[in-house]
């Protein structure tokens, strides 16, 4: 056992800054590997992650890998898969389905991911504030969010789109605004329950200030369920964005996301069901993948689920 510090006047500086860096790197590395092991135990989550990496790569490299221009008619209207040399056939205007799916993924992923991430940031700030301060702050913030709750998402988007021009930016903005109350509620509830944990009181007894308690104690312990929830929302938001585009508030033709491709396919549903089925199928699979990833994250972010 070492000598009691302070009793011998001088404390020895036994370890160097390099040791500390090594230790911190080690802690970080260990945390990451343990988290990955917990995630990897869920095979569906691993499969979903690999699938999503492929989907994202396709979306990024769409201009290079698309066989045709997605806005140009290259085949017969509603051509079935295989006709005109098109692997997935043509849509109602004879445009290449495969290329449109590649390009549509860019928009669909954008309106799924960006509003969810943005809304999560805003909701974390609002929910932490309301949940930690409590009292009047809680009442003011949550009642204002309740008002937004009362508006249907589409109505809210119509208002915002009426002020701004329709387009991807409007779509992202309106989905963000509509999403904040849902996530903020979860953040607030989790904050209130974490706030009552004995380790918060222990930190305060040790001399922690409110900003320290919020950032080092409450935030890391509150974030896990929020991240899981937000991840599963991404798939849903892709569908919501498509609905808004259908109403003419979002993506403008001839550009497309997967949702507008589904609704465009309606016109030729009987003659060319593939024009609706392919994008619909992609939406389902991608939404499912996000939800599997959310499940995997739930385990990865829980320190108790990590085993050595």
């Amino acid at each position, binding site marked *: 056992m070492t000598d*009691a*510090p302070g009793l011998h006047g001088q404390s020895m500086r036994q370890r160097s*800054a390099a040791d500390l860096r090594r230790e911190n790197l080690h802690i970080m590395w260990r945390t990451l590997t343990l988290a990955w092991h917990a995630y990897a135990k869920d095979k569906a989550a691993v499969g979903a992650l690999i699938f999503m990496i492929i989907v994202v790569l396709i979306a990024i490299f769409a201009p290079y890998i698309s066989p045709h221009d997605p806005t140009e008619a290259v085949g017969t209207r509603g051509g079935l898969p295989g006709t005109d040399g098109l692997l997935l056939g043509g849509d109602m205007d004879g445009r290449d389905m495969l290329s449109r799916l590649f390009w549509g993924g860019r928009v669909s992923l954008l309106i799924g991911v960006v509003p969810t991430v943005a809304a999560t940031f805003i909701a974390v700030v609002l929910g932490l504030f309301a949940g930690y301060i409590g009292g009047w702050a809680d009442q003011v913030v949550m009642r204002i969010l309740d008002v937004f709750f009362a508006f249907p998402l589409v109505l809210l988007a119509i208002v915002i789109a009426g002020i701004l021009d329709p387009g991807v930016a409007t779509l992202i903005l309106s989905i963000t605004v509509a999403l904040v109350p849902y996530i903020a509620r979860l953040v607030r509830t989790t904050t209130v329950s974490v706030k009552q944990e*004995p380790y918060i009181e222990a*930190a305060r*007894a*040790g*001399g*922690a200030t409110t900003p320290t308690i919020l950032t*080092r104690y409450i935030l890391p312990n509150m974030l896990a369920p929020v991240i899981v929830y937000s991840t599963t929302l991404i798939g849903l938001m892709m569908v919501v964005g498509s609905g808004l585009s259908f109403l003419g508030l979002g993506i403008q033709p001839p550009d497309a996301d997967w949702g507008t491709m589904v609704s465009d396919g309606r016109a030729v549903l009987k003659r060319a069901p593939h024009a609706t089925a392919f994008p619909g199928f992609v939406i389902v699979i991608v939404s499912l993948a996000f939800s599997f990833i959310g499940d995997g994250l739930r385990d990865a972010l829980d320190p108790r689920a990590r085993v050595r």
Partner: protein
Amino acid sequence: MSDITTGGAGRGANGGEGPLLSVEGLVKHFKLDPKGLFDAPPILRAVDGVDFDVMRGETLGLVGESGCGKSTTARLVLRLIEPTAGSVTLDDVDVLACSKKELLALRREMQIVFQDPLSSLNPRMSVGNQIAEPLRFHGIGDKVDRFDRAREFLEVVGLSSDYYDRLPHEFSGGQNQRVAIARALILRPKLLILDEPVSALDVSIRAQILRLLIDLQGRFQLTYVFISHDLSVVKRFCNRTAVLYLGRIVEIAESESLYREPLHPYSQALISAIPEANPDGPRADSLGGLEGDVPSPISPPTGCPFHTRCPHRMPECSERTPVLKEVKPGHQVACFLH
């Protein structure tokens, strides 16, 4: 660097005269949610006038049934919650009057160890970093100093410094309680409040932790306030013992004297209920044959709070509240019988 090494001994205005901690007339009334919209909020009298002194280097036990205000008293002394009335003086500094900045400085002098070791540690922070956290809060030393000091304190509490990067859930309850003790000690406090530190642990681990606490007390010149409902532990561990009932101290004395000859009827009942390691002896089914339960602290009895259950109650017990008075040197009791 020098900031660390001058911790603990030598700080504070008063070197060794008088009590380290002095608590006078401490009161905490919690306002509860009213039943109806227009009802007055019911008031829970958690602590209802508590006085005690703790001498330097001694261990004072606070005992009583659950809900008698032991833990609330601990939180009030540390000013983790604000009292309704009363005063707390640590080393001649008024804890309740000081500003936020002064309070931060005072937190270096008094620390607490909680009952449940696992939940009193951040589940997502390595135990080493948690031990170092109080140094961070107070801006003591640089990162390397804090890292060194945390590893040192892991060994002070009998853990390997290689455990620095472990998370609390990888440890047993006893190991986590050692971590919590190290975290409380790293600021070199003078006063350590132990709020049921072994109640959540296995019986086999309890003795180890108590042994460690006794070692540390000698090594770091610590003063302990030991809160427990386990009277047999308090008997062995504490120099003096205070018995609480419904937010008041009913008896306070040297442990040896209290256990040999308890004067308050409640203390007598508590002490007679300590289970003996003798299967043929009398069974301690109820609390020393006391009738009834502890009255609610929302509507405590008038007069002596214990009169509703007291086998020796007299007419005046329900009318006037007895105050603590010294009946023998160092032995105070709040009862009209004495």
